[in-house]
Every structure is written in structure tokens, then in C-alpha cells.
């Protein structure tokens, strides 16, 4: 993607995210307080994050692949289950993938 196209996406995305926040401050509270709205909103967050985990772990260049990332993410999951802080989890996953690749695995 060209730098101009990336900038356009950055600014458009930033504006849309800001207007979403402002919307919450401007509309009557009861509009957004409906159980179905808050439930779907929470689940949309879950769905997008889960899909991103899947795509970042199991795909590369539009095809499904199994490589060092799968092992790294499995280690990250164990670290999260053990309540490791976010930054530790991220660094650990990078270290596992880097080590496996240095050994010629994945």
C-alpha cells in the first residue's frame, strides 16, 4: 500500500474511532444501555480479537500454514493461564518463535 493510502486509512480510522467515543457521550444513556446492544458490542470485540488471533497464528499470505507461530501462541496461552503480564506474554511468544527459527524449525 502506498504511503498516501496508508495515511488516509490511519486518519479515517482514527476519526471513526473518535466519533464512536463521542457518540457514547452524546446519545441518551438508555439507547446504549439495552442488554442486547451491550451484549453484541462485547461479543463483537471477542469475535474480532479471536479472528485476529486465528489469522495471525495460522495464515500467511492468504493461505493456511503451520509454523513456529503456533508453538509460540500455545506458550503464550500457557503464560496467560498462569496470569503473566501482557508484555511478558508478548515478549515470550516472540522469543519462542525466534528461537525455533534460529534452530531451523518453522
Amino acid at each position, binding site marked *: 500500500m502506498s504511503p498516501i493510502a496508508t495515511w488516509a*486509512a490511519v486518519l479515517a480510522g482514527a476519526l471513526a474511532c473518535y466519533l464512536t467515543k463521542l457518540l457514547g457521550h452524546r446519545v441518551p444513556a438508555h439507547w446504549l444501555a439495552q442488554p442486547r446492544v451491550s451484549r453484541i458490542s462485547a461479543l463483537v470485540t471477542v469475535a474480532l480479537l479471536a479472528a*485476529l488471533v486465528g489469522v*495471525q497464528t495460522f495464515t500467511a499470505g492468504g493461505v493456511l500454514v503451520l509454523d513456529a507461530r503456533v508453538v509460540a*501462541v500455545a506458550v503464550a496461552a500457557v503464560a496467560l493461564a498462569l496470569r503473566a503480564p501482557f508484555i511478558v506474554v508478548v515478549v515470550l511468544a516472540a522469543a519462542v518463535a525466534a528461537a525455533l527459527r534460529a534452530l531451523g524449525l518453522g
Partner: protein
Amino acid sequence: MPASPPPPDALEAAQPHDPAAERRRAIRQATSVAIATGLYGLSFGALSVAAGLSVLQTQALSLLMFTGGSQFAFVGVIGAGGGGVAAAATATLLGARNALYGAVMAPLLDLRGARRLLAAHVTIDESTAVATAQRDLTASRVGFWWAGLGVLVLWNVFTLAGALLGNALGDPGRWGLDAAAAAAFLGLLWPRLAARSAQLVAAGAVVVALVLTPVAPAGVPVLAAAVVAVVIGWRSPPGPSAVPGVPGTEDVNGSDEVDGSDETGGREGTARRSG
């Protein structure tokens, strides 16, 4: 996570009210949340330049978009070869929960004009969690601003450090930064998986995204996975089992607890959630 937190009245009765102490407590919580959150700006900065954004574009995201999950998603879609529209749309959808936080915070803050515009910008997971974990109105407001502005400053400082570090590292794959991106999304997802419905949505979303990956343009599989959330969220009965487990409602202590009241519950645990 306590199954049934004591009602706010009981807390008030048990502990004599000291407004200054409440404010100090709010500032302490906000500061620790800001430091912890700011630190993972390091990983965002590094992953963003690894995905192909410039240092300046990375900084613009942290300053202007300023909502962590959306920023990670934006660079994730770009890094996977997705277009600008898919990246911006995914980021916006992921930021939809901030509108709910705004609706909870607006009556507590009661602002107009420029202050409201600034408050909207710093309405994120962390500021809302700290604000709603306080026991009186003033402490809530103090906690909101300290957490919101504290995260804004530290998140941007550490984003810059991460971006410069990422640039210096060179080949992202050699350092495992692609795996770090996947782990970052897992870390943001993890605290939201308590409820059965959330686990179901997560599993369904992964399947949809992976099935669509070989056939749809990059970025589209992730967006399409959001449909799973709408389908399951639409049908779930709004019974009591759905409420405590749904992370979006839990992050703000349940909107019913703060609606039209000065009291904001007292669960400190919510302030320590990440995401």
C-alpha cells in the same frame, strides 16, 4: 472475580467516608494502570513498524486513534496484506465498545464543550474501569482523568520507543514479531473469555476467519467473523447468566450499577483488567 460483590451501601457503612483518601486511592489505581498499559505500547510500536507503517504513522495511531485493541487490529490487517478500508473498518468495529463506555461516563462526568471533547478521546477500557471502580463521584472523576490522560501520555511515549526499537531490529520474522502480534491479540482476548457465550463466539470467529482466508481478500475474513457475534449476541437470552460473564458489561461494572447514581460499586478488580 468475586461471585457477589458487597452492595455499595454495605461498603459505605463498613468504611468511614474520607473524600481525600478516596481521591488518593483513585490516583494510585490510575497511575498503576497507566504504567502497566503504557508499557505495552512498546509492543504496539514495534509491531506497527513490523507491519509496514512508518514511525510517524504509528505515532499518529497512538495519538489520534488512541484505543489499543483497534490499533493492534489496524496494523494486524495491514500487516496481513489487507486494504486500508478493511483496516479502518476492523479498527472502528473493535472500538464500538468505547461508545458504551461513553454512555456510562457521560452522566458521571457531566461535561460540556471542549472538556467533553477531550473526555471522549480518553474514554477507553482503562479510564472507564478505574472510574467505575471508585466509591464516590469525585474519586470517579479523578480516576477517569488520571487514568485517561496517564495512559495517553505513557502509551504515546512507549509507542515511540517501540517503533524506534522495531525499526532497529530489521527483519520482523527473525525476531518472532509475527508471533508476538498473535500473542498480543490473545492477551487482549483472554480476559474477555469468562462467559460461555464469549468462548462460543471466539471459537466460531476463528473458524469463520480461517475458512474465508483462502477465498476472500485479506482483511475481510476478520470483519466477517464479527457476524458470529451478532448472531449469537442477538439470540442469547438476557438472563442473569449472561450478565456477569459478558466482559463488555463487566468492564463497566454493569451499567445498571452506575446509572443515575453517585455510587459506582467498589470492585477494585476491574481496574486491573487489561485490554
